[in-house]
């Protein structure tokens, strides 16, 4: 069924996002470690360290955040959801996924504007465009929109478990309810 293909593709995409983000975290770790090493052992601090680590962090937060929409691991308040009937709950989930999807569109559109407007600014000590740091926002926005659309039409939480689901948040709570 095409639905399943979609689910498989987005699941893979979310996993790739987390792998890329994990690698960014590892790189960031070594960059900041290198900063200390440079200062004490080599006697000079690498001036690019701070800005490159910060840029990596922006990237993995936004990409990881998008993956979180697919895997449903974002923190949210489910108290109301648990009090209402099953059909109302379904409507609430559709509405809340629509809000997330709209946020994704906004990230794509106005985050894109942010990239364009700061492309001519330079990140000091790196020499790359400031917009490069912000580029994570529109990319994460596009993915967020796709993932939330999937959740509206084909909520993975309502179906059998596909791959590794987060142990907390929506899914667990559904199971308890």
């Amino acid at each position, binding site marked *: 069924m095409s639905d399943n293909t979609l689910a498989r593709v987005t699941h893979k995409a979310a996993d790739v996002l987390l792998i890329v983000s994990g690698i960014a975290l590892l790189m960031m770790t070594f960059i900041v470690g290198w900063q200390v090493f440079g200062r004490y052992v080599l006697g000079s*601090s690498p001036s690019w360290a701070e800005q490159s680590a910060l840029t990596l962090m922006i990237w993995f937060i936004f990409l990881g955040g998008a993956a979180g929409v697919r895997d449903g691991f974002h923190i949210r308040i489910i108290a109301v959801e648990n009090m209402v009937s099953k059909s109302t709950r379904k409507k609430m989930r559709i509405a809340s996924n629509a809000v997330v999807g709209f946020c994704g569109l906004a990230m794509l559109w106005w985050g894109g504007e942010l990239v364009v407007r700061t492309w*001519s600014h330079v990140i*000091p000590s790196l020499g790359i465009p400031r917009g490069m740091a912000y580029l994570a926002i529109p990319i994460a926005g596009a993915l967020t929109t796709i993932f939330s659309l999937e959740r509206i039409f084909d909520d993975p939480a309502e179906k059998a478990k596909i791959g590794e689901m987060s142990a907390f948040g929506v899914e667990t709570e559904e199971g308890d309810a």
Partner: protein
Amino acid sequence: GAADVNRPLLAADILPDGFPTVEAVKYMGKLMSERTDGRLSIKMFAGGQLGSERDTLEITTFGGLDIDRIAIAPLNTFEPLTIIPALPFLFRSTAHMRGAMDGAPGQMILDALQPHGLVGLCFYDSGERSFYNTKRPILKPSDMKGMKIRVQNSDLYVSMIKALDADPTPMSLGEVYQSLVQGVIDGAENNWPSYQTGRHFEAAPYYSLTRHVMAPEILVMSLSRWNKLSKADQEIVKQSARDSVPMMRDLWDARVNSARTELLAAGVEANEVEDQSAFSDLMKPVWERYIVSDKQKALVKSIQSMEL
């Protein structure tokens, strides 16, 4: 929307309420209000409520803020002419800096901002920056050898410290005090009032008057809001900004004097350096690296040739 063309101009400053730059912009708002019968005014957000200087500058270029008071360094990342007044040992004295920035060279820099979505209004003072450290008085460049000196996140400052054979450590201002206490860094550099406000003197009591940088502060307006004003109102905004400059400088001078007096009384050991040219001679590669275009060279020349 078009309906609120006359809403107050939103202004940002990272320095706290009561600081000379903040008071000057408020004064400018008062002048504007008097001159337009209350149509135009300024609402000031001081103390970094709206973000760092780089942030508020970006927001101003987007038209999200109307007026922004910043140091000149954040502009370096997109307008090469703004690097010039930040060059180490360019200005011979504060009087030289003020004359240059109020005159034709300053106007050239203000005009260069227009393509970036900004209208340059005027320059304020940021004082004379000198080195302070936890170890010893700096009398000659070799006293700084190997010292870990905190700098702002700016390539220019990094090269300057390297040229002095010290170790530049870019770090946000908020981490400096702790890092001085712990010995992560040995020193930093700033003007008297900032040295006092950040309480860095508690940890680093040696203040050596190198006066290496006298880069001014700058007041900018967003071009999108500017374009919504009538020609007459634009002139009023510009003139009110200019009229706030002498007031700012009086407050600033008083502030520098009180900071110096209080710090010396608190036990800070200040010293003049033996020979300033020993420091400035080392800056040649720094200048060569950052002055590349003919426009920049012409600007440097016109500043140097001013008789002040």
